[in-house]
Structures are given as structure tokens and as C-alpha cells.
């Protein structure tokens, strides 16, 4: 096993291209656990925290670009980001403990490809774009296309997510993320729900994205749930339809963290509650 800490993305890509299994350490909060359990035994570990570009949050086109090595805690410290996308920041700040948030990154959360990743539904709802850098250059893809199955991504050999772009927050827009866990902290989401919506001047919902976590093999973007809100005043009736659509979209499994029925029912509850918070935020 080797360790490298390159200072540019180009160098990182060159290292990752090498033969053998390579893993990126950004926050390391998943990788080190996998190494400890013997689940991961990479030939090369590439630490990207010495790459300036990966360490920054920058404003771009009215939105924010979050480097792949920016910790969740740092996101919470960024006033502009917090104001624009409170749901995304909340989701990032729900991951693990204070200690974990001091290391974990949303890019890592995305690339670890756990269906239960907290930040992913929030990012999907926000319409976030992942900037992927690899041997063939850069490409921008919607975050929902990164994870393909538990632990599997669409990234090619040598590619890494360099940053995630959160677009400009729409006028009269708001987002929220909620998850269900049995304790108050430290658990993996049993269900997660992210909602982003925007209103017109009359308070009618003109745009909505609803994403669910931990209810399928990867985070789901639920168009039917969004449709339940668009064109409505996000009243009780619309929220009930949203909840029903969210529950209907679930394809969960029974596991040690929750049952199918529980996940299906609670997905609707959380989607509704997240939409209520997003609505309040959109109304300002």
C-alpha cells in the first residue's frame, strides 16, 4: 500500500490512473472504516486535501462550488452557503458526529454511493452538478447520476469528483432535508427526504424537486412527488399527494435498520415535513 498527497488535480488523476486499486481519501470517514474491516485494501491512497481547488468554497454563477475536500463542518461555517441552501447544509451537518463532520465531505458522501447517504437527497433536490475530472478531462454531470448501486459509481478508472456545484438559489426558493433515525444522532438514515421548491409571486409552486434516500438501491429523484406540488399553493391536499407519491416511489428492503413498511410510510411523512420547511423558507 502506498500513500500520496498530490497538490494538483492533474497529479491526482495521474496517480489514480495507475494500475491496481486506488482510493481517494478526502474525509476518510468511510474509507478508513472499510480498510479496518478488510472490505477495502487499496494499493494506493490519494489524499486530495493538499489540492487548493478541492479545499475551497467559491461563488459561481450565483451559486456555490464546493471543493471535494471541503468538510461538512466547513460548509456549516459558510454563511452564504447556509443562506442559499440551508437544506443541503443541514444534510451535511447531519452526517455522523461533530468529529465526523470535521472530516467528511459531500463529494465523499456522494462517491461512497451508500443509498442512505444524508447529503445526496438534499443535493439531488437542489439540482447539484458534480464536476468530474479524469484522464479525458472534465465533465459536469447531475449528482443523481454518480451512484449506480450500493458502493458503485459511474466514475471511470482515474476519475474523481473534484467539486460539486450548487446552482443559484431560485427566487422565492427554499430547500430542506430531513432524515429518520432511531436516536437523535450518530445513526445511518433509515429514510431521508430532500425537497427544494420555488414559488411565484402569488405563492404558487412553480418548481420542485423531491429526492429520497435509503428507500432504494440509490437515492431517488421522485418526479411524481414534485408534480404533486407544482401548480399548487403547497396546501394540505398537495402535501398529502406528495406524501403518497413519495411512499409509492419507495423500493426499500428490510434490514437491521428498518422494515420495508416503515420506510415506505415514513418516507411520505418526511417528504411532507421537509416540503413544509422548504415552503416556509421559500416564503422567507
Amino acid at each position, binding site marked *: 500500500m502506498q500513500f500520496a498527497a498530490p497538490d494538483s488535480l492533474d497529479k491526482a488523476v495521474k496517480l489514480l490512473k495507475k494500475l491496481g486499486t486506488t482510493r481517494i481519501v478526502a474525509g*476518510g470517514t468511510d474509507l478508513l472504516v472499510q480498510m479496518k474491516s478488510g472490505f477495502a485494501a487499496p494499493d494506493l491512497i490519494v489524499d486530495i486535501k493538499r489540492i487548493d481547488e478541492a479545499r475551497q468554497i467559491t461563488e459561481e454563477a450565483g451559486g456555490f462550488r464546493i471543493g471535494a475536500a471541503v468538510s461538512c463542518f466547513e460548509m456549516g461555517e459558510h454563511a452564504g452557503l447556509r443562506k442559499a441552501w440551508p437544506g443541503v447544509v443541514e444534510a451535511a451537518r447531519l452526517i455522523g458526529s*461533530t468529529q465526523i463532520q470535521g472530516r467528511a465531505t459531500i463529494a465523499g458522501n456522494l462517491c461512497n454511493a451508500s443509498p442512505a447517504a444524508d447529503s445526496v437527497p438534499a443535493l439531488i433536490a437542489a439540482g447539484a452538478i458534480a464536476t468530474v475530472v479524469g484522464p479525458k478531462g472534465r465533465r459536469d454531470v447531475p449528482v443523481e447520476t454518480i451512484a449506480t448501486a450500493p458502493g458503485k459509481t459511474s466514475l471511470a478508472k482515474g476519475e474523481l469528483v473534484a467539486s460539486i456545484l450548487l446552482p443559484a438559489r431560485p427566487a422565492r426558493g427554499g430547500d430542506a432535508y430531513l432524515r429518520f433515525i432511531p436516536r437523535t444522532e450518530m445513526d445511518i438514515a433509515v429514510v431521508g427526504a430532500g425537497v427544494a421548491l420555488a414559488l411565484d409571486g402569488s405563492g404558487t409552486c412553480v418548481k420542485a424537486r423531491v429526492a429520497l434516500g435509503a428507500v432504494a438501491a440509490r437515492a431517488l429523484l421522485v418526479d411524481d412527488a414534485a408534480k404533486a406540488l407544482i401548480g399548487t399553493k403547497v396546501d394540505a391536499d398537495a402535501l398529502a399527494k406528495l406524501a403518497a407519491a413519495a411512499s409509492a416511489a419507495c423500493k426499500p428492503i428490510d434490514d437491521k435498520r428498518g422494515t420495508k413498511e416503515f420506510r415506505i410510510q415514513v418516507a411520505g411523512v418526511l417528504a411532507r415535513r421537509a416540503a413544509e420547511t422548504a415552503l416556509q423558507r421559500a416564503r422567507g
Partner: protein
Amino acid sequence: MAGIHVTTTINGDTVEYVCQPDETLLDVLRDRLGLTGAKEGCGTGDCGACSVTLDGRLVCSCLVLGAEAEGRAIATVEGLADGETLHPLQRKFLEHAALQCGVCTPGFLVAAKALLDRNLNPTESEVRYWLAGNLCRCTGYDKIVRAVLDTAAEMRESRNAA
């Protein structure tokens, strides 16, 4: 596996060590440097007993590679007291009997200090959520939370007096 040479700062002192690429900072602290204050309760970031700060940021040292510490500044429980003078948190933990077995205590102290460094007026709820990554099985947390709140109050008072 070739060893990696690392130069870092621990509790203000420059320290050099050689570690393996897959060796955690916790293992380096405990097994190479003899700093056994940080404990391994789980090795997976779930218990907080190995808490240290890395460039001022609270982390689980079991989820940091030793190699990552190059050029960084690490603070551990061993650096909390100033010579013979305990940090107010250490004193209040004793006064409030905020420890029983004491194995989680180093992690709690490091974590609580990281909180008070940022926020000297936390609510009970803020203390509880900040410390949610530090497991204690003995106390039920009551006396720990009281000790942290009391420390904050005392530190506020002495800051105002100064």
C-alpha cells in the same frame, strides 16, 4: 510497505515519526509516540474516545491516517492542562464527578474544549448535540453536561472580569 516520514506538531511540539501508509493517527499517537490519552473504543468513528483536534478541527484520530498529519497541528488531551494547572474543563469534570470509569473522559474533554473554543455560551441542547459523537456508558451524561455548562459559565465570568 514503505514507511512514510512525517513531521507534524503535537500539543505545540514538533514531532517526527515514520508510519505505514495504512496506519491511523490514533495508532501513531498511542503506539509510536506513547500518547495513550486518546483511546480506541471502536476504531470506526462511532464512540469519540480517540478525539483530537487537527488544525483546530475536532476529529476522530482513528479516522485520520498518520500520513495525513504532515505539516498539521494536532492537539490531544495530554496538552490540555498548562503544566500543573488544569484546564477549567478538567477541573469541572472532577468537581461534578463527570466521570466514572474515565475511559471516555479524554475524548469528552477534547470535544468539549473544541465546543467552548467556538461558543462559550452553549445551551444544554447545543452541548448534548455537540457531544453526541462521544459515547459514555457510565454516567447517563447528566454530570458531563453539567460540567461543560458550568465550565462555560465560569470561563465567561472570568473573561468578563478580565
